[in-house]
């Protein structure tokens, strides 16, 4: 199989896990990759575990990342990191909420977009494509604070 990159995003219902992967998958699609995105959703209620996975590369078969083959795990909630670690490959990267400057956000609702910024440090995607993707998926009135959140995450590092 040709090189495939596997990304898992995990969190709790209502934290914007699916919005994050919607944006990223769309950007990757427009960058010309073969992309598959998969998640189990359909329950409306807030608060339960949610995870969404994206695979991209030249050609993707299964929409689900084989166990132990994820390259990157983005966790939006500290309680969701541990239960997803087994899905990561040896030497894979975990992006934890504790390590990112979420506390600096004026609106904690933008944490998912900040984490997209943090994830983007590990992906070879032009920054502008990601900024355009965010603008496509988020309503105008919250766009500015989300773009700022993205940049904060992309810069990375706690003060």
């Amino acid at each position, binding site marked *: *199989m040709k090189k495939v990159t596997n990304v898992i995003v995990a969190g*709790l*219902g209502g934290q914007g896990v699916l919005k994050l992967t919607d944006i990223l*998958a*769309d950007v990757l*699609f427009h960058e010309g990759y*073969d*992309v*598959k*995105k*998969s*998640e*189990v*959703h*359909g*329950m*409306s*209620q*807030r*608060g*339960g*575990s949610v*995870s969404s996975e994206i695979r991209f590369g030249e050609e*993707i*078969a*299964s*929409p*689900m990342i*084989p*166990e*132990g083959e994820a390259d990157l795990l983005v966790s939006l909630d500290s*309680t*969701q990191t*541990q*239960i*997803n670690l*087994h899905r990561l490959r040896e030497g894979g990267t975990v992006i934890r909420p504790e390590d990112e400057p979420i506390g600096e956000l004026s609106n904690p609702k933008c944490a998912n977009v900040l984490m997209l910024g943090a994830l983007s440090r590990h992906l070879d995607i032009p920054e502008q494509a990601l900024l355009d993707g965010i603008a496509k998926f988020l309503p105008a009135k919250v766009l500015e604070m989300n773009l700022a959140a993205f940049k904060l995450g992309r810069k990375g590092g706690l003060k």
Partner: protein
Amino acid sequence: MSEKLFLSGNEAIALAAIDAGAHLGCGYPGTPSSEILENVALNGGKAEWAPNEKVALEVAIGASFAGARSFVTMKHVGLNVAADPLFTIACAGASGLVVITADDPGMASSQNEQDNRRYAVAAGVPLLEPSNSQEAYDLFRQAFALSEEFGTLVLFRVTTRVCHSKCVVIRDGSPVTPRPTGYVKDIRNRVMIPAFARVAHRNMRDRLRRLEQRNETGEFSTEKSGTPELGIIVSGISYEHAREAAPEAGMLHLKMTYPAPIELMRNFAAKYQRCLVIEEGDPFLYEQCRIHSIPVEGKPEMFRFGELNVGRVRRIISGAAEDEAPAPAGKPPQLCVGCPHRKSYEVLRDLGCIVAGDIGCYTLGVLPPFSAVDTCVCMGASIPTGLGMRHVLPEKDARRVVSVIGDSTFLHTGINGLVEMVYNRPATGHLLVILDNSTTAMTGLQEHPGTGRKLDHTRTEHRVSIDALVKAAGVDHLDVCDSTLETEKFRSLVQERLASNDLSVIICRRPCILAAAQEKKLREAGK
């Protein structure tokens, strides 16, 4: 025209319906199928929520009788509700009629794991199974043509991962204006009196024979040759897992799995030292192979449960039989903070009620801190199962039984139970609590006949009143309250009604917090 898109299976099916010139899509919401009709409406097609799946299929049958291309969407258990018209129309024949069943292996959001491919055999209709969004788009368009060519309803089976995974789709069609319709009288094929039905049954078997011959041509399958050690016969999402798990293996990928291409499978299997059938759920293709003495190997029983994935397919291939390590448990879903059901359940719990529950967000009342739901079988079962308990329990316990149902579920199949309640009244009476949150919450806030809005959320004056239905049925008491704001009123009402021998209905009316937010947005948008 050709366009490259990034779509879920459900979005792809919706687009295919538009590009096939479908006149009408009907259904009842159910995970993982709900987004199909929503996307048909978003793309300008005609789509409706019916009160239940049986009604939806019957409307679609009528449209087909009138010369239309029509289709129905539902989750797997919905087909149980629609099974009555399904079996008869399978014999009678139909044209331009497709039923989508969205199965849920692994039960991400369902009460059972039934494999609806069995329905194709039981009813006698062809079965199509796409494995990704592209195939969903291509096959769904083809399904209408197949239905018209052979004069049969086509069953279109998707699964959770096909419905909800997104992948790249080449859309090589464009919207087609639905063709003109018209009525042609044809009583031999539309009035199933025994004299006509006997002929219809023979015709159905003949159609299946011809469909099998067509499937043998290879039109609905692809074959890839591989190393002589291993050949795999596969369908649905399992195809994607298998081609990743065993890229070197030969592969026969079937898209029409009933009537299956027996000789095609036999010839394929003969080319390999070992031939495996890989499929999620029941050993459906495997059994068809074995009945016809095709030497194939199935999967061990443990892989019948849950979804397959690349890892599990690798284990099937390697013959690993050791128990699988369970994945670490995530946090289960709970009633939202501010959910209107919370107070209702607190009261029923504190009063020590035996709660016959139903299907919806409110089934979650079974979990702590409420622990208030005692039974949940299927859509609409709350009222009859509550009545059954009342009929036979000792009086002291009979008085504790309460049936609880949501508004959408009440309109789905709860009405029948209400009629039963009035007609076969238990000696202690009964109490029915309708949790009316003004939406079909669990499946994603769909409208229903009682919300005052249509599938696309536009307003309608033709709203069905649950209150009026309850009154008309002839119960002794009907009360409406908001258990969140009037908790004490609700508590004393429940106590009073349980102590009497009357038939009582209490409607707890307060919108789901997510539906209220949606309603606010719609109003702001002037809708």
